[in-house]
């Protein structure tokens, strides 16, 4: 876990005290999500898994469940308990009418804005991406500062780009997957949403560096006072408010138009565990309110129970939406990344990019039905 002080060892020792004779060892995962995924696939596919409880990125739960690697938790994690958690986190844990993992820590995409600059123009945080682009141009036009940029987001060719475009899809009233499992259920709206992202770069509402930006690059630009708006995860807020930060006291937060993508992690149990009951007790223990509160205090990773959230964040977290909950999410995302990037940098029209992605996805996904 990240953070100033890792709360996990303390929690595990407490669990051991409560369960005499049980020893829990934790294994640190590789740093990036892609490599973690690879680590799990190799260990679980190779049947050499040396673990009972696993931390899962929200986007893997459906895939791992379909692969048969996760214990069905439907009879252990009861509906009454599920209702304590944010609906998006429960949605991400479900596949085929069953639940496969328990929400542990929650993340959601949100809009950071420079409250001082918006106030100077009498602007309220925007409710649509068009308004966001307009406001950015207006503030930039008045500021006449070549070092200041408008709306900074994640446009590098990677998972983050898929997340950003998906959030635009939602604001445009469509999704990546339809309820019937079809890719791009409303191609017209998807094209328009993608085109509006490209338009931000063309109009100057977003700076060129967006096409190379990941979370950290964009966070640093805003944190150095060089941007009016930023789309990022909640981890950035304490960094902006830290002593010595150039934007301290000047940052406002708002929900993204259309809602922010759900991030964070769930806890699942390996289907082949010799100790399912004990593993469940550990999952329960690590995800109960006291543990979530301790993790939040030490790391800035937020609880999945709205009741435990800082009231200032509650509205933003309530708008969280899961990325498409499908076993094929990795295929979907990895196939889309180069195509979305091509549309963002203007090499392809949105029509062409989405059509090319659809051709490839048909080959990958269709025979699986």
């Amino acid at each position, binding site marked *: 876990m990240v953070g100033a002080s890792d709360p996990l060892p303390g929690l595990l020792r407490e669990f051991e005290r409560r369960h005499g004779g049980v020893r829990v060892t934790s294994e640190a995962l590789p740093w990036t999500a*892609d490599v973690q*995924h*690879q680590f799990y*696939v190799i260990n679980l*596919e190779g049947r050499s898994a040396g673990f009972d409880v696993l931390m899962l990125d929200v986007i893997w739960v459906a*895939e791992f469940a*379909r*692969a*048969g690697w996760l214990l069905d938790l439907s009879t252990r994690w009861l509906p009454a308990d599920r209702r304590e958690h944010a609906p998006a986190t429960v949605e991400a844990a479900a596949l085929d009418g069953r639940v496969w993992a328990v929400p542990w820590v929650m993340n959601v995409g949100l809009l950071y804005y420079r409250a001082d600059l918006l106030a100077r123009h009498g602007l309220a945080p925007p409710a649509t991406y068009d308004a966001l682009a307009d406001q950015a141009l207006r503030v930039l036009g008045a500021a006449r500062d070549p070092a200041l940029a408008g709306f900074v987001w994640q*446009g*590098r*060719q*990677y998972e983050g780009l898929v997340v950003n475009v998906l959030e635009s899809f939602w604001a445009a009233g469509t999704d990546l997957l339809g309820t019937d499992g079809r890719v791009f259920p409303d191609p017209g709206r998807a094209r328009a949403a993608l085109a509006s992202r490209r338009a931000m770069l063309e109009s100057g509402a977003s700076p*060129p*560096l*967006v*096409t*190379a*930006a990941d979370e950290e*690059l964009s966070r*640093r*630009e805003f944190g150095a006072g*060089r941007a009016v708006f930023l789309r990022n995860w909640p981890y950035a807020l304490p960094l902006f408010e830290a002593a010595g930060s150039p934007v301290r006291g000047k940052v406002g937060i708002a929900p993204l138009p259309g809602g922010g993508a759900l991030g964070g992690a769930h806890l699942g149990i390996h289907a082949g565990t010799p100790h399912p009951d004990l593993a469940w007790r550990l999952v329960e223990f690590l995800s109960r309110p006291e543990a979530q509160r301790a993790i939040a205090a030490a790391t800035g990773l937020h609880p999945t129970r709205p009741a435990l959230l800082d009231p200032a964040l509650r509205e933003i977290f309530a708008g969280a939406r899961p990325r498409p909950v499908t*076993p094929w999410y*990795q*295929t979907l*995302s*990895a*196939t889309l*990344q*180069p195509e979305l*990037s*091509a549309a*963002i*940098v203007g*090499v*392809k029209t949105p029509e062409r990019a989405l059509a*090319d992605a659809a*051709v*490839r996805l048909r*080959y*990958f996904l269709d*025979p*699986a039905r």
Partner: protein
Amino acid sequence: MSGDRPLAVALLAPALVALGAVTAYPVARVLALSLERRVPVFGIADFVGLANYRFLAGDPAFWNAVRVTLAFTVVSVALEVVLGVLVALALRRQQRFRAASLALLLLPWCLPAVVTARTWEWLYHPTAGLVSRLASPLSGPANWLGDPSTALGALVVADVWRTMPFLALLAFARLGTIPASVYEAAAVDGAGRVATFRAITLPLLAPVLLVATLFRTLDALRAFDLMFVLTGGGPAGTTETLTILAYRNLFQTLQLGVGAAVAVVLFAVVVGVAWAYLRAIDAGEAAR
């Protein structure tokens, strides 16, 4: 002589078994895998014949990866050879601090690839990077890794910086073995610098350069780390090499059949290039 045969076979056996286990078997497995639709995570394993290859043949992303791989290889290796020879010649003429120059020259070659890639990531950073700052009076704020027209060039520069020392050092060592008397004879004959270089230095360097270029070409065809760290294949797939495409299919989407087919194509290209080089080297030896 024939009495030694059983002994020879016995002595060779361990090496042959080891090579078979670590080379021939995996290659055969990948070939077989490329004929399947295989997604092990979901228990999918169907024999589909050449369907994966047909899919690749009709997929613009595959041909894009072929182009990117070849462009990256040709440009970066050519620059490395030319710059490497120039640096070697300069080093030969250098009188003082030559050891220090050699040590500095070797530094990039010694760094782990990912460290190099991370360093260049910061150098190319759009607002804080040294390269962007130095170039900005000419080009304005530059977005080297995020612009489809510059991303591949930026990777080539990083690759040349990292591997040119290898060629420079080999050329430098070879230059040291050319007897001074050869040059003296050329000078007596009134040959100028260019003529001396073309008639003496280059022909004597050629065999070494050919072998070094073979190594570098094979490395460049298989390049992965720079793209993986710096661009992830983007923007718009402009830095997506065959290795990145294979990785995407093998490890991200877990479409092992398609990924294996990409790997087989890359394997065929590498074998073809190696064969062509070895023919050229043989021809050079025969001519001597």
